């Protein structure tokens, strides 16, 4: 797998990251190297093998639906970079 610049840009956007030209070059190179390495898995025949999707052997962990204490409002907002008395504040979504 050889990554091209357009794919890198698309993936970066999905990951909400951005790279300048130099770091994009390095990232493309590193990712290509790693992808070529992990493609070793294609040597293995996995026909008929179910993908393993969960590692815990716990299933249907149920509990009574009771009211309990949770993180209170003030604590929830405590670490906000920007806030008002009730909400997190972010820059304008619409210009």
């Amino acid at each position, binding site marked *: 797998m050889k*990554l091209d610049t357009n*794919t*890198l840009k*698309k*993936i*970066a956007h*999905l*990951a*909400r*990251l*951005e*790279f300048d030209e130099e770091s994009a070059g390095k*990232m493309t190179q*590193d*990712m290509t*190297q*790693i*992808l070529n*390495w*992990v*493609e*070793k*898995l*294609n*040597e*293995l025949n*996995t026909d008929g*093998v*179910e*993908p*393993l*999707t*969960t*590692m*815990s*052997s*716990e299933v249907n*962990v149920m*509990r009574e639906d009771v009211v309990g204490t949770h*993180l209170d409002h003030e*604590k*929830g907002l*405590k*670490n*906000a*970079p*920007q806030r008002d008395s009730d909400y*997190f504040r*972010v*820059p*304008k*979504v619409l*210009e």
Partner: protein
Amino acid sequence: MEKFRSFDEIKKSLENKETDCKAVVTYYLNNIQTKAHLNAFVEVYTQSALDQAAAVDKKLASGNAGKLAGMVLGIKDVLCYQGHEANASSKILEGFESQFTGTAIQRLIDEDAIIIGRLNCDEFGMGSSNENSVHGRVLNGVDEERVPGGSSGGSAVAVQANLCTASLGTDTGGSVRQPAAFTGVIGVKPTYSRVSRYGLIAYASSFDTIGVFSNTVKDNALVLEIMAGSDDFDSTASRKPVPHYSELLHFDKPAKIAYLKETIYSDSLQDDIKENILGTLETLKKEGHEIVEVNFPLLDYVLPTYYILTTAEASSNLSRFDGVKYGYRSPNAHNLESMYKMTRSEGFGPEVKRRIMLGTFVLSASYYDAYFTKAQKVRRLIKEFTENLLDKYDFIIMPTTPSTAFKFGEHSNDPVAMYLEDLFTVQASVSGVPAISIPNGTDRNGLPIGLQIMANSFKEADLFAFANYLTTMKS
């Protein structure tokens, strides 16, 4: 004089009234100061540790102290402890203050353990050398030009340099066992789901475990038995009963032990380590244990499987760091989207970005089946192979690491070379089974060699007992 290297020693001094918890904490605080250049601690909780010590001393006087009264613990910078900062060694979590205490730590505090500070690590647990940290690198106390291993490098060095009795790390692909091997201490990764992950900043949720560093097997067993068990705040945490590992350390039966041909005769294994492990297997044979060589044809596929799945999970887990709710927010943004992008690009380090990008790639619509689903299938093959082997044999023994501690910068320009450091530790992580690394002598340069033992899921009691037997057999 060196003292307090084990909890038994502390307990004895406390019982004989030769010391109190305040003096124990003060002793470690002095060591931390003397060894500050190792950069193991990110923050020392001097005041809260002394306050805790005073409270535990009172309990000891009135005879109602918990099981860990007098034990002093350091915690990795990815674990939440209410009222204290946690950064996951990342700029993106700068200034973050935990608003609650994670279950594992709370259970230790409830038994009167004293938390002395938080420990340096690779950013979000991603690394094998502790070189990827916003807090700077950690030095290995054996040779300060060498890495302590990672990602829990600070936790390993804190025990190595006697800065606390034991410490907590996290192990996703070897992040407890590899630094334990590099620094000559004991490190355990429990079975996946044995310890609640509530209050642990997630890296890869189907691999992450909280593990323990200590100088003695008994301390390791004791800390794990108190942390482990079901938790209302983590529905994946196992509801299986937790044995009292620390009281089950006697091992006196012949064991059936397998070693994997591909690990011991691997080209990447350092000669001294190979000789070391072959010597140990020979001794075990003489002691009457059954030693069998088996093939592990999947060895070369374990690391690729690990990297596809963990980067995918990391890309998803780390999407929460967006500059809205906590941590760093870029001051340069002009609208919401640029706030996300600039915050994340300025806040994450290069290795974390690399893994987020890879994870995003393998999860993207066009490549999902070819990479992600494929790796999930191979994971099942590896897990089943390993479990079947561990049904037949009590333990698998292998080296913890292909080499002893390497020098700073040695693998910095080649991500795959760095990933290969985890060659022998990822099998247990991919399979979810427990594994322990114990110190097993040194190489020709005097650098510690780690021996890794794996057992089947939830067989921690056997693992600790056998590790204890091995450490006493050697001495």
